[in-house]
């Protein structure tokens, strides 16, 4: 057999295998839906049913393991019910026969417009269905979203609350001057109006229970996320006549159950096509396997406020998917909706590809609360929404998406082992605080070749890696138009290299609270020379960054200035630790016993203010608040007391990521060095080891108290003074000392005193001759 014949034979053999496998494929049974169909039809293409619900019924009635397709013929579907599947459904596909030609609407047409009785600029119509409660409806006129009324439209209503009014979460003071002159504040419609109180990273939406006009306060129905007055930037009132300021604004009068609309120029009340949302979701799918939504247009859902991921109803999104492995949404458009776009609770190998999501009130694509992950989000376009892509799950491929005009973060990842690449993120953080175009905790991930570009000034970073991002590489990204292109918050072992930053003004980078980061080989296009970085100690290396300076008087023209390397300075020498005597100088056997049930404040001990474990083993400062371990100390006439606070891992504290926990590897041990030879090693398990001394630490003189990963843990220890090896000297009694913490996740040590080469016994504990009066 010659070579050609062999190749042909091999090809035939391969084809046979492929074809025989194809013969094992299960068939697919299709049911057709058309707006012009009838639910008494059989569901064939020539005899389609009218509603997808009937098609699902027919499909479920087929008792076989064939795959099922619900095919939507072209047209506009005004759905009366959310589409659901029986639990444990398998292999369902919902698809448009022609991509983008089947529109599934959760809204209902509004008719009967008339002039508003109170204001002739407005028109009004009855809600065309019975309102199921206080909801955030979505209203559209001639295919265009109307703007829900909001007052004021610029600066918020001033809230004259003191900073952090203690435990006040409901009494919201207001400045009457924030309201229009002559406006009767008592006339506010408490049934319809609600307030939104933005505070740092959270906003609270609440109805007003009482309008206490005399005391100039609203008493809220819902507690604010933070104490009122904290992060106080005032508030706004939504869905009120006050906010009906411009054509295109609307509100829903809850008492009268009517819609009030301020028509845009040229809109004739008798001719407008208007719809208002009546469904919370188009799809509400649960516990189904291997399902697909393909090519559909979905719109017109309301935001079912208060519906969480674990509530009975669908999540607040056009596509609500819970516990559905192998779920695919592709080629769809989600638009004009009061909730979000596509929400998945605990996603498992989901694929969200090539969708267009725009003009939704909440999040575009949302992976919630962990799950197996291994999902793909590729080639989607998202515009005009509160939050773009939000992924709280591991092992994601988020590639080639375009996200723009976003109220908060464009792309958020609370996950790890992910690739975030080649995304284009424009104009994020338009309305909210605390976030960035790229935001979240990026653990063991690659963030590469993304473009972040803002047209207008933003006070928030382009890339904001938050609490505990670690071991991630940010490279090849281009961040333009942001004075603060990058903020690494408590991030570790991050490499930021070969990125381009461009801003026509002074710039800042920040590695707040992080350590062992590398900021190298980037290109910086800026206005002023860079001479220092306040966060330099947080970088293991700040080097070889090419700085280009803008030419004077020239816009967008830069010349190479220098390749800049900034050197860190070694940690400063800490003064000796002076140990104060506790309240009862004489040892009281019933007094300061070590007791793991007591908090620090409950001890009858005057703890000296804590010192940080904040020097690396190389002698350089590592000033991050993580690991955040501190040491407090005191003494009486018999013992020295140590109280060690261990900030537990905030390394991966979010669902979807592995919390390695406080036992297995985050803070393995604390070691105390006394005198020339003695060391005491304290383990998480409560075990202790004394070396270099014959002293046996009695059980009960060392306790560990674990308060969980967020609140941290403590170790409490007492040692007899004579064991510690204090020597008399003019200022009192003194002993050589250092304390060390070991963090296994980072494989790194930190000390209280700067180490001197290999010598860690570099500081002193001193018990002064006279009590320290200044210490409480």
């Amino acid at each position: 057999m010659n070579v050609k014949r062999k190749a042909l034979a091999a090809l035939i053999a391969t084809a046979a295998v492929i074809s025989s496998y194809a013969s094992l494929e299960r068939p697919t049974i299709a049911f057709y839906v058309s707006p012009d169909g009838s639910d008494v039809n059989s569901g064939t293409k020539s005899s389609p049913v009218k509603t997808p619900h009937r098609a699902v019924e027919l499909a479920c009635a087929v008792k076989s393991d064939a795959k099922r397709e619900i095919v939507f013929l072209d047209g506009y579907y005004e759905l009366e019910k959310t589409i659901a599947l029986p639990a444990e459904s398998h292999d369902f596909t919902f698809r448009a026969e022609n991509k983008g030609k089947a529109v599934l609407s959760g809204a209902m047409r509004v008719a009967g417009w008339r002039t508003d009785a109170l204001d002739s600029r407005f028109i009004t119509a009855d809600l065309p269905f019975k309102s199921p409660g206080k909801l955030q409806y979505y209203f559209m006129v001639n295919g265009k979203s109307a703007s829900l009324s909001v007052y004021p439209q610029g600066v918020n209503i001033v809230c004259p609350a003191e900073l952090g009014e203690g435990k006040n979460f409901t009494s919201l003071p207001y400045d009457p001057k924030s309201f229009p002159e002559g406006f009767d504040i008592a006339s506010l419609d408490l049934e319809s109006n609600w307030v939104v109180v933005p505070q740092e990273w959270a906003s609270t939406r609440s109805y007003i229970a009482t309008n206490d006009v005399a005391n100039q306060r609203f008493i809220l129905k819902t507690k604010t996320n933070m104490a009122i007055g904290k992060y106080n930037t005032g508030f706004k009132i939504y869905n009120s006549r006050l906010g009906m300021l411009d054509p295109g604004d609307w509100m829903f009068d809850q008492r009268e159950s009517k819609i009030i609309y301020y028509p845009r120029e040229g809109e004739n009340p008798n001719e407008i096509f208007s719809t208002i949302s009546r469904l919370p979701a188009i799809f509400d799918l649960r516990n189904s396997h291997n399902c697909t939504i393909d090519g559909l247009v979905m719109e017109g859902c309301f935001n079912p406020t208060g519906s969480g991921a674990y509530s009975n109803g669908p999540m607040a999104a056009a596509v609500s998917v819970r516990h559905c492995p192998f779920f695919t949404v592709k080629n769809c458009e989600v638009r004009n909706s009061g909730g979000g776009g596509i929400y998945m609770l605990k996603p498992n190998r989901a694929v969200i590809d090539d969708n267009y999501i725009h003009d939704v009130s909440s999040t575009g694509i949302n992976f919630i609360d962990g799950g197996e992950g291994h999902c793909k989000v590729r080639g989607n376009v998202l515009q005009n929404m509160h939050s773009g892509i939000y992924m709280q799950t591991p092992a994601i491929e988020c590639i080639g998406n375009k996200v723009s005009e976003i109220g908060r973060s464009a792309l958020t990842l609370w996950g790890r082992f992910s690739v975030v690449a080649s995304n284009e993120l424009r104009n994020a953080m338009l309305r909210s605080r605390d976030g960035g175009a790229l935001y979240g905790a990026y653990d063991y991930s690659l963030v590469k070749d993304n473009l972040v570009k803002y047209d207008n000034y933003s006070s928030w970073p382009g890339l904001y890696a938050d609490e505990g991002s670690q071991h991630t590489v940010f490279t090849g990204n281009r961040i333009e138009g942001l004075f603060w292109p990058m903020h690494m918050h408590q991030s570790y072992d991050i490499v930021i290299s070969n990125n381009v930053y461009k801003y026509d003004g002074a710039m800042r980078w920040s590695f707040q609270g992080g350590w062992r980061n590398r900021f190298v080989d980037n290109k910086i296009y800026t206005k002023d020379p860079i001479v220092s970085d306040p966060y330099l100690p947080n970088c293991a290396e700040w080097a070889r960054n090419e700085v280009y300076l803008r030419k004077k008087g020239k816009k967008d023209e830069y010349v190479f200035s220098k390749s800049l390397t900034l050197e860190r300075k070694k940690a400063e020498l800490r003064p000796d630790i002076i140990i104060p005597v506790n309240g009862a100088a004489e040892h009281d056997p019933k007094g300061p016993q070590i007791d793991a049930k007591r908090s620090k404040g409950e001890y009858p001990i005057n703890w000296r203010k804590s010192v940080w474990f904040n020097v690396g083993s190389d002698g350089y400062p590592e000033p991050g608040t993580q690991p955040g371990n501190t040491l407090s100390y005191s003494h009486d006439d018999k013992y020295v007391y140590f109280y060690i606070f261990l900030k537990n891992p905030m390394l991966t504290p979010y669902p979807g990521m592995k919390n390695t926990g406080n036992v297995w590897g985050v803070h393995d041990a604390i070691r105390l060095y006394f005198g020339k030879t003695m060391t005491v090693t304290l383990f998480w398990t409560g075990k202790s080891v004394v070396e270099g001394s014959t002293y046996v630490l009695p059980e009960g003189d060392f306790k560990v108290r674990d308060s969980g990963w967020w609140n941290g843990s403590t170790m409490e220890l007492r040692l007899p003074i004579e064991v510690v090896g204090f020597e008399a000297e003019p200022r009192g009694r003194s002993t050589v000392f250092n304390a060390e913490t070991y963090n296994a996740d980072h494989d790194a040590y930190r000390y209280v005193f700067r180490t001197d080469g290999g010598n860690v016994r570099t500081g002193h504990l001193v018990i002064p001759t006279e009590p320290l009066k200044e210490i409480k």
Partner: protein
Amino acid sequence: MKTICSAVLTAVFAFSVFSGASAETLKKARVRFEASYLDVFKGRKAKPAETVADELRYDRAKGVGQWRFMLQVSTDDRVRFIDAKFSYGKFISGDLHVFGLESVKLDADDFDLLKRDFVMAASKIGSESSSPVVIHRSSKKRLNRTASWKEVRNFRLNPISDLWGAFPSVIKQRGVKVDSLACTVDYESKDGVKGSLGKFVNASKKSSYNEAALHKAIVKIHADAGADPTKINMRKAVDLYIGARLKYTPVD
């Protein structure tokens, strides 16, 4: 993928259980379908193929014999069945039975493909009711493997799942006794330290290791070989584990 449109829909309907017992739910119909095939599985004990006599194995038995196989439809908990004839371990003929669909004739290539992708439970037709249900790994699953870097993301060991996936729990729902399915795992680090990670028994407390247990097991093996156990923290244990050779041995 074959899409059955209006032209053939009637034919499919005619075959499917759609006709007939119209009041019967999908679930009940499925149970009825499965019941007609489960008689040779139900109530029997599952044993790994590696632990049973050759005469019970379709791929090793001498002479001609007939076996019934149960396997998953996809990655979920639905099952389908194969009735097949073998001669001296060689596939002769077979039929694939899927709920609600017409049986499909299989050839040896078909069977090989299914064998590659699915764990199968096999029961010899005509065997005594005390005979075990024999669990065959999918042919792409090896008994030896090297722990890879990918496992850092999920540092734990579940040998039952590694060998047989979710299949034991799927057939348990059908009355097969799978609780005692078991295997041992031997470990050899890159630098040649050998030891056993233990015996893993399905439906027992020790069916898998979470990260703490796996850490502990690795520490023990290396401590037995002379290493200082206090120096093997989680990070070090991961370093030792990645690249180590793991040998799975199904046991009775």
